[in-house]
C-alpha cells in the first residue's frame, strides 16, 4: 500500500498506525472528499477482531486539516456509540479525556491512539452484548473464560442468520517468536481457538457441541500448520474450562516439536551437500526450501527441494528445472512435482540423501527426454 495521494499529515498518521498497531491493520480503499482536488482523505480500515475483521471508515477532511476525523462503523454495529456520555448536553465542558477531544493533526501517533481506544471500546461493547444473551450455558462459559488474557467475543445476529456467539480464545502462554532462531516475524505469532456457540434461549437438556476451529497468525504456517492438528473430541456436557487445558498441553508439545524439526531439516540439507554440491539458495530460517545445481554429463539442471513441516514423516517434494531448455514463453522447462520415490523416515540423514541422489540420477534421464520432446514440439509449431 502506498500513501501517495494523501496529504502529508494523514499519510504520516496512517503510516504510523499501520507500522505500530498491535494487530495487522490494512487500508482497503481510499477516496477524496474535496471538490477541486483529488487529495485522498477518507478510507476504509480493516481491523482484525475476534479472528475476523471489522471495517471502519475513517473520514478526514483535506480541506480542513485541523478538524479531527470522524468514524463510520459497520452497518451491523448501529448501537455502538463510543465516547457517548449519558448526561452530556449542550456545551458540556467537563473534562472528557479521549483521543478526539485532544486531537492534534501534527502528531503522527494520534490516529493509532484513536483506533486503539475505539477498538478497546468495541471489545467492551461486544462483551456487554454477549453478557446480555439469555442462555445458561453461555453465561457459565463466560464466567469461567473471562479471566483469560486477550479473549475476544462477538455477538452476531442477522435477520436470516441464527444468533450465535463467537469467542476468540488465545492459547498457550508461550512466545513462539523467541523459540525460532533468527525469527523474521514482526508481529508475535499466536494460536487461537475459535469457539462458536449457537444461542439457545430455551432450556436444552443436552446442548450441542460448539463449533471449534484452530486458527493461527498466517506467518506461522512456515513453522507449524494448525490444519494438521487433530482437535481432541468434545464430550457431552463438557465445558471450555475442561477442554482448554488438555488442548493447550497437546499444542505446546506439538509446537516445541515443530521447532525442533527445523534442526532436522537443516541437517538433511547439509547431508545433501557432499552429493549435490553446495546449495545455490536455502531458506536459512525454517529450512523449508533449498535449490541445488546438478550436472550430469553435458546436461545440467536445478533441483528444488520443498520440505513440509511434517518432514521427515513426509518426504520432500522435488522439482527439476532445466537451465538450457525453455518453453515458448521463454520460461525454463520444469518437471512436475516428484513426491513418489523410495523413502523412510527411519533412515539416517546420509542415507536419505544417498537414496534421493540415486533416484535423481535415474530421473535426470527421464527429465532430459522430457526437455528434448518439449523442445521438438515447439520447433514443429
Amino acid at each position: 500500500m502506498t500513501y501517495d495521494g494523501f496529504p502529508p499529515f494523514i499519510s504520516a498518521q496512517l503510516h504510523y498506525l499501520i507500522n505500530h498497531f498491535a494487530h495487522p491493520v490494512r487500508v482497503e480503499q481510499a477516496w477524496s472528499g474535496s471538490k477541486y482536488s483529488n487529495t485522498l482523505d477518507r478510507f476504509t480500515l480493516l481491523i482484525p477482531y475476534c479472528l475476523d475483521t471489522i471495517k471502519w471508515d475513517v473520514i478526514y477532511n483535506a480541506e480542513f486539516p485541523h478538524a479531527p476525523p470522524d468514524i463510520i462503523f459497520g452497518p451491523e454495529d448501529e448501537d455502538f456509540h463510543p465516547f457517548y456520555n449519558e448526561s452530556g448536553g449542550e456545551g458540556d465542558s467537563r473534562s472528557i479525556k479521549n483521543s478526539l477531544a485532544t486531537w492534534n493533526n501534527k502528531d503522527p501517533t494520534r490516529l493509532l491512539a484513536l483506533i486503539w481506544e475505539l477498538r478497546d471500546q468495541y471489545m467492551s461493547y461486544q462483551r456487554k452484548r454477549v453478557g446480555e444473551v439469555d442462555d445458561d450455558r453461555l453465561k457459565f462459559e463466560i464466567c469461567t473464560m473471562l479471566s483469560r488474557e486477550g479473549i475476544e467475543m462477538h455477538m452476531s445476529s442477522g435477520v436470516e442468520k441464527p444468533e450465535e456467539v463467537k469467542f476468540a480464545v488465545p492459547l498457550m502462554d508461550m512466545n513462539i517468536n523467541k523459540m525460532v532462531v533468527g525469527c523474521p516475524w514482526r508481529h508475535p505469532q499466536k494460536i487461537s481457538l475459535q469457539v462458536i456457540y449457537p444461542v439457545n434461549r430455551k432450556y436444552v437438556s443436552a446442548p450441542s457441541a460448539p463449533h471449534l476451529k484452530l486458527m493461527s497468525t498466517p506467518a506461522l504456517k512456515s513453522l507449524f500448520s494448525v490444519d494438521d492438528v487433530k482437535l481432541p473430541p468434545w464430550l457431552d456436557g463438557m465445558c471450555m474450562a475442561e477442554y482448554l487445558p488438555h488442548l493447550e498441553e497437546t499444542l505446546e508439545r506439538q509446537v516445541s516439536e515443530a521447532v525442533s524439526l527445523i534442526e532436522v531439516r537443516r541437517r538433511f540439507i547439509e547431508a545433501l551437500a557432499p552429493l549435490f554440491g553446495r546449495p545455490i539458495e536455502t531458506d536459512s530460517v525454517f529450512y523449508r526450501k533449498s535449490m541445488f545445481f546438478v550436472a550430469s554429463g553435458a546436461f545440467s539442471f536445478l533441483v528444488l527441494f520443498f520440505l513440509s513441516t511434517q518432514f521427515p514423516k513426509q518426504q520432500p517434494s522435488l522439482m527439476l528445472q532445466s537451465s538450457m531448455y525453455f518453453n515458448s514463453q521463454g520460461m525454463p522447462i520444469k518437471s512436475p512435482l516428484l513426491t513418489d520415490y523410495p523413502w523412510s523416515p527411519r533412515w539416517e540423514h546420509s542415507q536419505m540423501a544417498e537414496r534421493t541422489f540415486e533416484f535423481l540420477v535415474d530421473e535426470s534421464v527421464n527429465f532430459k527426454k522430457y526437455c528434448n520432446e518439449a523442445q521438438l514440439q515447439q520447433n514443429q509449431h
Partner: protein
Amino acid sequence: MEDLQLQKIAISGPTLASMIQRFSSSLGDVDGFIFGHVTHITPSTLSDDSASASTDSHLVATITGFICSGVPLSFYDSLGRVDSLKIPPLQHHHQQLLGWLSGRRHSPLRPSLREFSVTDSLSKIPQFHFPVKTQTRTLTLMPCVFILFTTPLADQLIHTHQYRAYQFNTFNRSFHPKTIDVINIGPAFRGHYGSFAPNCALPFMNCSSAAMEEESLSAKKEKVSDQEQLDLCAEGFQVESLKRLVGPDAASYTAGLEDLYEKMLAKVESLARLVESSSAQVLELENNNRKLRYKVARSTGLE
C-alpha cells in the same frame, strides 16, 4: 413525555434540490440546519382501513428552509457537542428548528460517530423544544430530524448523490429511517394545499386617505417605518400608493395591484443579482482560502 414518531418528512422539490446544490458546490464536507414545522394531519377514519393504520403516527414534519454552513464542525466540537450560541435565531415565528443536515462525499450512507453525538446533543437543548398542536392536546417535540447526504462510493452508478432522512429517538438513542416525501407543484399534489395558511411578512398598515394625508409627527414616523417594511419586499413602491388598494380608489384596484406586483418582481430580480455577485465573491474567497489551507497542510506535513 412519550416518544413522538413522525410519519414522514415532507420537503418541496426546490428546497431539496437547493440542499443538494449547496452540498455539491461545497469545498469539502458540510453541515447545516433544517427549519420547518410539524403538523398533525387528520387521520382518515374510513371503516375499511386496517386496524394497524389507526395506531400510526399522524405527525408530518415539513421542511421549509435550511441554512448550509459550507464547512464541517460549524456549530459543534470534535466530540459532537453542540454550542447553542452558534445556532442562528429563528426568522419567523411559524418556523422551528427541526434538526440538522450533514453532507460528506464518498462515504457510507450511515450516521457516523460524530453525527450521532451532534443529533443527541441538539435534541437535548430545551430552548429548541417546540409545541405541536393536535385536535386534543399540545405535544412537545425537539429538533430530531437528521438528513444525511453522500455521494456514492462506486463510480459506475448513474446517480451522483444520495440522501437518507432519520428521526432521532431520544428514548433509546437511535436513528429511525424516515421516508422523504417530495412535494411539487401540480395537480397530483393539490391535497397538500388544502391546509395552506397564507402568512404575510407585512404588518398591519394604516393606509386610509385620512392617515396618508395627516401631517403630524407620529403619523410621519409611522409612514417612514411602513415604507421601510414595504421596501423589503417591493422596489420603489410608495406607501401612499397602498391607499389605491382600499376605499373609493379601489376602482383602479387592478392597475394598483399590478404595479405592486411588478415592483415586487423588480425587488426579487435585484435580490437575485445581489446573490449572484456575492456568490462570485464567496467563490473567489473560498479559492483563496483553499490555497492558504493547502499551504498550511504542506507545512504541517513537513514539520
